[in-house]
């Protein structure tokens, strides 16, 4: 067991954990932040994406100990301060960019990271960026629309209904 300390969603936390504890286990089981999900065991699906020092990271590929001293942000801290949905979250609701909701936290964290580095991504840039996020429900159509809308862009004609 080793002690790890980091800042999660603006709060300092420290726990004794086994060395093999993954960051996602630490978030879900030690901190009970269950909004971050586990959908695979090969770092493909992206349901576990969180932000570590501002970068989108698959929290199943990282040990908790590797996040020592880091600033970690999870889906639980994404809403506006008054609790209302932020721009990206609101766009996902407005455009029906989620169905079962399981991949959704990872999608929101990925989309947020994308828009930070590329505020007006093209449709193709969004599709390529989401290479590491699998959704089985939506066929991606409304996720792409939501992210385009969150970036303040018009939809391509084919996407309009």
């Amino acid at each position, binding site marked *: 067991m080793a002690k790890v300390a980091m800042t999660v969603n603006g709060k300092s936390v420290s726990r004794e954990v086994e060395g093999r504890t993954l960051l996602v286990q630490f978030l879900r089981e030690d901190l009970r932040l269950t909004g971050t999900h586990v959908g695979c*065991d090969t770092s493909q699906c992206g349901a576990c994406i969180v932000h570590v020092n501002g970068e989108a990271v698959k929290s199943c590929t990282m040990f908790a100990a590797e996040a020592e001293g880091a600033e970690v942000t999870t889906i639980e801290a994404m809403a506006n301060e008054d609790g209302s949905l932020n721009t990206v979250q609101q766009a996902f609701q407005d455009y029906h960019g989620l169905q079962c*909701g399981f991949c959704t936290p990872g999608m929101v964290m990925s989309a947020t990271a994308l828009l930070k580095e590329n505020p007006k991504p093209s449709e193709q840039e969004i599709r390529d960026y989401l290479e590491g996020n699998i959704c089985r*429900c939506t066929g991606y159509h409304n996720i792409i629309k939501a992210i385009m809308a969150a970036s303040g862009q018009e939809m391509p004609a084919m996407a309009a209904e």
Partner: protein
Amino acid sequence: MPKDTASHTGIGASTKRREDVRFLTGNGNYTDDISVFGQAYVHFLRSDVAHGRITSIDTSAAEGMPGVVKIFTGKDFEAVGSIPCGWQVTDRHGAVMKEPRHPVLAYGKVRHVGDPIAAIVADSLAEARDAAEAIVYDIEELPAAVNMKDALKDGAPLVHDDLSDNLCYDWGFVEENKGAVNEAIKTAAHVTTLELVNNRLVANPMEPRVAVAEWNKSNDEYTLYTTSQNPHVIRLLMGAFVLGIPEHKLRVVAPDVGGGFGTKIFHYAEEAFCTFAAKACKRPVKWTSTRSEAFMSDAHGRDHVTKIELALDKDNNFTAIRTETLANMGAYLSTFAPSVPTWLHGTLMAGNYKTPNIYVNVKAVFTNTVPVDAYRGAGRPEATYQLERVIDMAARELGVDPIALRRQNFITEFPYATPVAVEYDTGDYPATMDKLEEIADLAGFAARRKESEAKGKLRGLGVNCYIEACGIAPSNLVGQLGARAGLYESATVRVNATGSISVMTGSHSHGQGHETAFPQVVAEMLGIDASMIDIVHGDTARGPMGMGTYGSRSLAVGGSAMVRATEKIINKAKKIAAHLMEASEGDIELKDGQFTVAGTDKSVAWGDVTLAAYVPHNYPLDDIEPGLEETAFYDPSNFTYPSGAYACEVELDPETGKVTIERFSAADDFGNIINPMIVSGQVHGGIAQGIGQALLENCAYDENGQLLSASYMDYAMPRAADVPFYAVDHSCQTPCTHNPLGVKGCGEAGAIGSPPAVINAVIDALNSGGHKVAHMDMPASPSRVWAAMQG
């Protein structure tokens, strides 16, 4: 943005989904988010060979490992029932199917990679896994039955030693049609024959399966939290057939469920194990599947090998269809496995066409592979794919336009009784085809093909139709067909004193948006705002017996039950209102949440009536009871028959064989629509799964039964860049005639209609480049396409 009319929250509004808020903020409550105080964790030691005899198993060293609570093997489940099958098929000779025992943990033999040999319960998951490595066991590996044709040969390895062979059943449908079909094919002007494989798929909801079970020592009650599409069905199957726990001692909860697509319908051994172990260990027990485990333990889908013949007369009218299919059951019969290649497949073989003679033969085969059962569409995609492929092939052989050939043979008069025992109530196939031609801009295809060719690419267009049967019922009929369950649905509408409403439904929502769409129906009926209505589902302790969500049945069956219960509420509320206004009950009208007396200005509000029901001071106590809560069970009189026409345009790179989907259009007829936004979303998702089947996904076994595609490294799930924006339309609406909402169901259409469109397009692209390729099996991977181009 979808239309969201603030003033109207009833039927037809694209109301935004209320469940989204919790999912978008990390506040969902999925089964793995549930932790029960004192819980232990289970890890299953699973077979790494496809077929073998367990000659020894020694858990003594593992039992001494840190944190181990208890280790179980098959012997511990000798006195426990077999995992049951919910459908008994009778074969064409009148014999019932073979139904082998399916133990909770393997006993004597392992029969597929992933079959659980032992289960380790420990204080932590890591300790359970560590202990698994200390279990010493020997498996004498046996030759495996993997390929279905080989599995049926004399001398093939027997999956089940107590069965005479690996044939589960040999089903003929309709047996009486056989002679006429054979004659029609013999005398046809043209017969097109196609042999194809409908590839094995894994449903892959993004949430892996989870089970958390607890046992209460003070009252001997069990609670199972599980990732299920139908918790009441699990309670019945597991309680009555496996563990012997009566319903009143067993609560099954399926909270937020992260997608199902069929594979979470079934009762699984892991659920029974956790429930059993919770009492045996006197501790709550939790199991969370890894994705790798999911690939080797979730029921798979499809896996048919089919030969279809289509006979046409000299004027290109379809005269007969004859099919022979081998359907893989895997090693054990999963809950509804026997019904998929039979009643959900053979009955759909007429498609949208007036073919007078049809005969379907299906041989279901046991193999040393993971059990195969319903996956989105379940039998109907297999029927649609072979039919729409053979029609396209016939058009190419005859040199006629594939759309014209379809139009010529469309069923145009309803109701229509097919030669495969179902009666379509409504439909308008020319209308959906017209709509498709418009939204897909088929007129512009030739120009787009020229553009592709100018870039050195081949472009293909594939069009097809589909029909499906949803809301499978009625119970007395399906009972005759072998179902061991009823197929009704229930709803309880509980109106509270202040006028707010809880609707308890047996339908389960795991992405379909019931929590938003169902209140729209009740709001419309009562004229109150949908925000006053909550849907309660997924908990056997909170609602009446229900049958759950599958086969696109929730709105057609569960929604109809809700309508019936709400009608009872309205009837009773009118009696109360009549009393309050001293009027005759027959004169009471309900509009916009107000009860009025016809022809007067008297009125009472919804809330006044509901309050009177619970504070019955001024109340007709001699006539009616206090309270305002009603339950209805709805058993449909027929299936519903959604239909549609789909078009896919692909671009094919002749240098690499890579196929990209350039356009995909879907014109569907779902009857009436409650929430158009949700309906479009259902179609989008189905299309992506169909494109996945056609281009990417394949669950592969080697000849020894090793599962080659057991992770997302090897099983190609569709990613965002693999699919285009889709053009979907559901403005063609021929309402269902036999349910009160006139709805047909939309959940599976996309997955049913899309695979043939993609493959028809790939074949068209290849032929446009001079490659005389008649057929290619799915998935049309670059290597397959490239090989086909080399001749």
